[in-house]
């Protein structure tokens, strides 16, 4: 007997998949933010050698398919280093690295958007390098970066769908399973697509709200 019909449990399954996708998206974004910003700071201080290495790695990660990076981490690393890598670990490593590379680019241009004269002025006032970074550059750079960052995050959310290929039970993988069981591709993939769409819209909306808050000090308040 074949169980070809949809059951109420399928909705739970879809939501579970969405939860896995979201959890991976949020965690890899946070890790990527930390790493990417650290790379940008390395470049800001012009740390010799390290800055060049970082630029090279970021360029390599940006210019290669995420799928290949995923295969390299999931199939390549275990064979090469003789370690065990679970699908979820491979997904976290790859997506974090990939996010970091793109966030690095945004962070670099955000830091550069703060005028040199401001940094010079801060230096004249006797602020330390850390204080300049923390009090002068960071707030302005954050307001500058949030727009491109939102665009990137909407993109990265969609990139998470690739991890289904190495067997992580995310939304796309659940869609695949439901598709194979029910043989109703249109309904299944429309539902999966709709869930991704709504999530992407939510991310874009949240980004817009956050941008408004960060830019509140420059907003027009009326006379």
């Amino acid at each position, binding site marked *: 007997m074949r169980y070809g019909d949809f059951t109420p449990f399928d909705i739970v399954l879809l939501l579970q998949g969405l939860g896995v996708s979201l959890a991976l998206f949020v965690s890899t974004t946070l890790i990527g933010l930390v790493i990417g910003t650290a790379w940008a700071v390395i470049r800001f201080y012009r740390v010799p050698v390290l800055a060049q290495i970082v630029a090279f790695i970021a360029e390599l990660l940006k210019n290669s398919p995420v*799928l290949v990076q995923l295969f390299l981490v999931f*199939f390549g690393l275990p064979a090469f280093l003789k370690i065990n890598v679970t699908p979820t670990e491979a997904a976290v490593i790859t997506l974090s690295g990939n996010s970091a590379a793109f966030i690095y680019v945004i962070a670099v241009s955000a830091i550069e958007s703060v005028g040199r004269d401001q940094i010079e002025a801060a230096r004249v006032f006797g602020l330390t390098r850390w204080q300049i970074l923390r009090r002068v550059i960071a707030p302005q750079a954050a307001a500058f970066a949030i727009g491109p960052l939102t665009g990137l995050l909407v993109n990265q959310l969609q990139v998470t769908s690739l991890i289904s290929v190495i067997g992580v039970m995310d939304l796309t993988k659940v*869609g695949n399973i439901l598709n194979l069981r029910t043989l109703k*591709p249109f309904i299944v*993939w429309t539902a999966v697509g709709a869930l991704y*769409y709504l999530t*992407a819209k939510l991310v874009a909306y949240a980004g817009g709200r956050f941008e408004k808050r960060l830019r509140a000090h420059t907003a027009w308040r009326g006379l």
Partner: protein
Amino acid sequence: MKFDLSILAKHIPFLLEGAWLTLQACTLAVIGSLVLGLAVGAMRTSASPLLNRLAAVYVDIFRNIPFIVQLFFFYFGLPEIGIYIDAFTTGVVALSIAGGAFTSDVIRSGILAIDPGVIEAAQVSGLKKSTIFRRIILPIALRASIRPLGSVFVNLILTSSILSTITLNELTGSAKIVASNTFRPFEVYFVLLVAYAALTYTVSILIGMLHRHLNRHQAEGAV
């Protein structure tokens, strides 16, 4: 395990076959997405609210749903409604539709950036609407958007690796086969990653040169 690239030597012809398939798929998809992008870009900037709305919905949907979900939708869905086409055609069609959404956005912003005075001048010269679009708007808009179009196309090349999930043995797909034949996944995927990066890096340099060449008569800073 030692890092040994020499084992790949005898698999190079097979990988090149895959690369050739990738090249074919990408070329066709670039043409497809350019045609689609031009049409949709024109719709999005047209005076008709209906066309405008339609185009906006198309772009919104295909930009916010992961490519792999779109691909599965077409790959599993089309046979359901009686359209039997091979994986290659499905892949090219899906890539073109997804790429068209991004391309149309670039072309739209290229059109919107044109000085309204230029269009008004063409109108008072008595040119037909279609002539204005073909001879005045398109050349200016396309010339200004070579570089952003280039990054859309680079993205298309990277996205084409996802076609390997629908049994199409393009570059990534054939690398998968080589990896499982040689038991050397690390070397295979590392070479693949570098190859993709070198390819897309070269493409973006060429696009940059083309952009500078086509815009050489523009004022300094506008290039």
